[in-house]
């Protein structure tokens, strides 16, 4: 039996319909503008699809009272334990407290209904301790923990019971909502969490070959980049955020960051967590530089999500042909297109005109992948 912590953020998605671009901190305003909740319907849809599968019997549910989970499970006829009681109207604090209760009960997985804000609140408590999977129901869903549809979450859960899923790192991204309401689009990388991954691909199973694990693939990428650095000791390497590149940064010993942009030269770390000004200063001192990026979040952005420090000025200095993209084969399979949003339309167009980029997906292993603006 697998123990699932199930949490609905009843106000997720409220802001979207009434033009608020998000609901964090403005749920009251949304209701005043006539918003109706979306999350309960999404929760019901997922649970209905799941209840129809035989694997549903092998799950035990821990949840929160009323609109935060209990109501949806009741409606789907699924037995459960309420481990956290909330007082509507609910807030982020309820989400966090519910997660602490789930952790206290040793859940194997947390399934939530919400958006990026909810994912962030959950990740702030559970970190990498248990994987999380989101039923998409927010206004923003950049984070890489969401199923495509409520039914796909049900399918992932059924696979989880059967032991057919792998646990992988996922970025938790969110729009800076205050900036956004002022008209500025700033998506930050807030954390990495664990999520379930269904290797939907083709022919990796027992008949053909065992696909290398995510970890092996990251090691292979790291090995390759270190070899490149070794061969070009004067080149400055700027390494973007995210779990894939963190593996490279860890090879330098202490000091590399998971969420920031770090710089290395000849296999040693020269600076960490750089802002735009610091990057430009480094570029002044280094005529040859490469920028290594991996797609961040669910939509495959290599620029413009979680790495705003890489401004158009920085990119122009480095030059498009010195941008190296890395991603594990699994990540690439779930990223139909690479995307950029540099904040400079001309630059975006230059990327889009390439149509394809070479992505490093293992040790000396490349794949051609489409890119669009």
């Amino acid at each position, binding site marked *: 039996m697998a123990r699932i912590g199930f949490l609905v953020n009843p106000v997720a998605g409220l802001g979207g319909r009434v033009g608020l671009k998000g609901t964090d901190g403005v749920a009251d305003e949304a209701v005043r503008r006539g918003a109706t909740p979306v999350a309960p319907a999404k929760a019901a849809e997922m649970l209905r699809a799941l209840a129809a599968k035989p694997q549903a019997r092998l799950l035990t549910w821990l949840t929160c009272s009323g609109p935060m989970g209990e109501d949806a499970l009741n409606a789907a006829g699924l037995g459960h334990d309420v481990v956290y009681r909330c007082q509507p109207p609910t807030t982020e604090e309820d989400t966090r407290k519910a997660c602490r209760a789930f952790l206290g009960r040793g859940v194997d997985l947390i399934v939530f209904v919400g958006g990026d804000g909810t994912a962030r609140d959950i990740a702030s408590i559970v970190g990498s301790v248990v994987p999380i999977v989101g039923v998409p129901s927010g206004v923003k869903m950049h984070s890489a923990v969401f199923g495509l549809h409520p039914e796909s979450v049900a*399918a992932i859960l059924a696979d989880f019971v*059967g*032991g*057919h899923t792998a646990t992988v790192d996922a970025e938790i991204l969110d729009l800076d909502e205050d900036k956004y309401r002022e008209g500025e689009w700033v998506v930050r990388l807030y954390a990495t969490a664990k999520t379930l991954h*269904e*290797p*939907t*691909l*083709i*022919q*990796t*199973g*027992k*008949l*053909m*070959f065992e696909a290398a694990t995510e970890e092996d693939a990251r090691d292979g990428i790291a090995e390759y980049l270190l070899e490149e650095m070794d061969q070009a000791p004067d080149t400055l390497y700027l390494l973007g955020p995210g779990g894939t590149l963190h593996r490279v940064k860890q090879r330098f010993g202490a000091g590399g960051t998971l969420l920031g942009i770090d710089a290395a030269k000849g296999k040693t770390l020269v600076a960490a967590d750089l802002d735009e000004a610091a990057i430009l200063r480094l570029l002044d001192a280094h005529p040859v530089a490469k920028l290594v990026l991996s797609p961040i979040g669910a939509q495959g952005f290599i620029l413009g999500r979680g790495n705003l420090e890489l401004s158009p000025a920085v990119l122009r200095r480095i030059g498009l042909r010195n941008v190296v993209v890395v991603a594990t084969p699994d990540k690439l399979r779930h990223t139909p297109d690479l995307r950029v949003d540099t904040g400079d339309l001309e630059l975006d167009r230059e990327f889009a005109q390439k149509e*394809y980029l*070479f992505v490093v*997906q*293992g040790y*000396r*292993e*490349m*794949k*051609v992948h489409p890119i669009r603006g």
Partner: protein
Amino acid sequence: MEKRRPTAWMREEYEKLVAADLDWKLRVLQGPSAPRSIVDGRSVIMLCSNNYLNLSNHARIKDAAKRAVDTHGAGSGSVRPIAGNMNLHEELERRIARFKRREAALFYVSGFAGNAGLIPQLVGEGDAIFTDELNHGSIIDGVRLTKAFRFIYRHNDAADLERALKEADPKFTKLLIVSDGVFSMDGDIAPVDQIAKLGEEYGAMVFIDDAHGEGVLGDGGRGVASHFHVEEKIHVELGTFSKALGVVGGYVAGSNDLRNYALNKSRTWLLSGSHPPAVTAACIAAIDVLETEPWHVERLWENTRYYKKELVSLGFDVGNSATPITPVMCGEASVAKRLSERLFDLGVFALPIVFPMVARDKARIRTIMNAGLSREDLDEALNAFERAGKAVGLLK
């Protein structure tokens, strides 16, 4: 400190596979692999062997194996380079070369050993390999043994291959393109004509693994290169005797230079005992049969056309296959599994292929046509498909 239990992990790993239903459950053939076989005590119509031409039961081939035991013994006594190189091995290689209309051939222990042993000797540091994302596992293992850069192109997508070639061209010394000729899951054929053309344009070596095309495609079953009339542009044709030719053993065919180089360099060839006389003589006889009895390949295609047409008119979806490999699409895994079980009850042996071997909504039964099936056998199998298909709700 607790004493280490050095092999306890084996059971743990195995139990994990069982829990995930990913372990192989082996079925047992009691007797020959034939159009009608005894499997787990039941007589069934065999729809999942690779014995396309039913040559594993051919009288001439069986006789050749028996005679070779009398004249040459049960085993070869050594590896080929030391003392295990018999006149039978040399004769077989001449016969393969003649059949394939190439200068020379080299016989390996298996097709797997050919891929894993030769690919890493063709390229290395400073070189690049271009490989289809769905290539067979033995190619993948061969590729992993080299220091060459690997460019993985989209399945059967020559445009993607060209993008990779273009990007790589100036930076590398040798270029090698590797593809299956026929892909064993879907039965689709690689665009070998376009691959050959790109090879020519970019000065790349072209290596085609034709395990499922030998004895099936091309003039008299000479394979995918013959099918596209591009033999001279394929530098390495890899084949196997384990499928349509009904025996076992792999080979590569190409130039004299290829053979001379490969036999001095392939570790799987140099360091593994050579085939026993019975196997080697049976392989020679299999080529005899292909060269003198064209009706086996003709029957295979007649059966394939009839079987596919009837499956489609019953209402089944048979995917994109262009070869005797015929997937019967089922959608969900549970449907494919039930269909396979019902078929077995009705006397038809065909295994389901499900997630994670294929995409989640592409579960299927993979059937493989056979030249030895009679029209009555086919009608019986189709009848079983109709009944089982209705029973599991795939047909109205």
